[in-house]
């Protein structure tokens, strides 16, 4: 990076006018030229699997939509009157139903694309070697997204939200040792009250997003640093490169517009429902179940007998799931030789199949 041209925009050093002046100003203060030349030199490989490169960007798009619609919901949502305020948003505020529907749909689509992104990275072995931190930061982002999903699901305070939150926190409470303490800290006591909504709201709208952002920037910066991973079964010399800017960027922009269209059409045609206000005295509604991305765990818990030997069945189920998720998160540690890579690949197929089977089974068993 020593003999770089000073300005990557040709002629900007001498050109008159507002834009060159702004570029010169920013360059002298923050080194914009370096940034621009990195952007100009960045290239993205094109090959038969290159379509997967867009999925991370799609996840990012849905996250940005979550931020924007979240800011809007923040204007009217009240954790002290959760159901009433969401009811007011969807019935009194103009386009409030749409904003809330987009937020809910985008949350689900973000988890979908995050899963697709993760599995495509896994099966292309893009977590390998020096890319391990990309994998670990991605796993952290997924866990935070799950936390955002869980806390956000609770906030409308309707029946399903109430029981999902109750079950979720009871599951957390059954963790040996610190479980009940953590659950009580989240709830602000033994029961779900206004205090609980205030806390889940604080986590959802402040704590988790603030934790999310720096990890997201690390993740994106690591992509810049290591470039796009090319699967090993492709011959590197036969692979064409296209410039990131403008070619890939414009393609990504089109993908984002398609996502925006899909999102708004889904949100408008299938507005997210708001159930009746939660009432602890009413029995849990029949067929109640969590969001689809918790369905596999849900089904596994349902399959466990009440006791397996001396251990509660619930704990065995959770233990199994936690062990599998932990192994998944640490896969860069296992995958170090070609022989192991093959085993990891089979393990990945088994995990994906297990998740899909449990999820479908869960829906059939409702």
């Amino acid at each position: 990076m020593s003999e770089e041209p000073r300005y990557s925009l040709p002629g900007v050093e001498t050109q008159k006018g507002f834009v060159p002046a702004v570029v010169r100003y920013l360059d002298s203060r923050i080194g914009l030229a370096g940034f621009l030349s990195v952007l100009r030199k960045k290239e993205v490989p094109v090959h038969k699997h290159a379509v997967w490169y867009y999925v991370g960007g799609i996840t990012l798009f849905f996250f940005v939509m979550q931020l924007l619609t979240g800011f809007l919901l923040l204007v009217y949502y009240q954790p002290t009157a959760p159901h009433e305020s969401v009811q007011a948003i969807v019935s009194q505020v103009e386009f409030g139903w749409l904003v809330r529907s987009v937020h809910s749909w985008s949350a689900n689509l973000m988890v979908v694309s995050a899963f697709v992104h993760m599995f495509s990275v896994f099966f292309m072995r893009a977590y390998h070697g020096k890319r391990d931190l990309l994998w670990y930061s991605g796993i952290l982002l997924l866990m935070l997204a799950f936390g955002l999903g869980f806390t956000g699901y609770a906030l409308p305070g309707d029946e399903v939200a109430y029981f999902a939150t109750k079950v979720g926190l009871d599951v957390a409470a059954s963790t040996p040792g610190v479980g009940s303490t953590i659950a009580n800290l989240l709830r602000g006591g033994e029961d779900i009250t206004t205090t609980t909504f205030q806390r889940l709201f604080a986590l959802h709208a402040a704590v988790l997003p603030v934790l999310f952002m720096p990890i997201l920037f690390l993740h994106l910066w690591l992509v810049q640093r290591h470039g796009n991973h090319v699967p090993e079964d492709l011959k590197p010399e036969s692979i064409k490169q296209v410039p990131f800017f403008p070619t890939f960027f414009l393609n990504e922009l089109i993908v984002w517009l398609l996502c925006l269209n899909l999102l708004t059409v889904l949100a408008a045609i299938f507005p997210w429902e708001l159930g009746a206000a939660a009432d602890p005295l009413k029995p849990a509604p029949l067929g109640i179940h969590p969001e689809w991305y918790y369905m596999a765990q849900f089904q596994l818990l349902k399959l466990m007998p009440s006791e397996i030997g001396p251990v509660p069945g619930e704990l065995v189920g959770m233990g199994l799931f936690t062990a599998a998720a932990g192994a998944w998160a640490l896969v860069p540690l296992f995958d170090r030789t070609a022989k192991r890579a093959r085993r990891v690949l089979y393990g990945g197929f088994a995990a994906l199949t297990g998740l899909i089977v449990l999820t479908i089974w869960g829906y059939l068993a409702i």
Partner: protein
Amino acid sequence: MKDENRFSRRDVGKIVVGGVAATYAGALGYPVVRYLASPPGMDEGSDVNEVTLDAPDAYERGSGILFRFGRKPAMLLRRPDGAFAAFFASCKHLGCTVQYQEQQDRIFCACHGGVYDPSTGRNVSGPPPRPLDPLEVDATGAKVVVRRPRSAGNEAG
């Protein structure tokens, strides 16, 4: 045909891209603006035209109280001669709620020192540019009734 070359292919492309971008900006911007501009309960109290207060005798001569007129603060004064006067209590300078000061017999705004006449609401000294917005008082019945003036001027303040 000279006009054939007025728009180049590039110009047409720019217009199309610009038009699509503007359409998206409008389609996204309009709901956002409407969303922010329509808080729930915004209309509550804005259609209040009349407020019934206590019996006339409940108010001492030379006193002033604040009450709610819809969503806006208002002031009822009973003058030393027994007459009533009422105003919206938002200062015409920058909207602080004014107070009646018995000692000086004046309506005073603590924010920037505006002073109004307690019988007429006229701005007497300090920064206020206009008199307080008036309300009509009917003290002939069992209760004092305060009404928005029929010929609604700029009282919405």
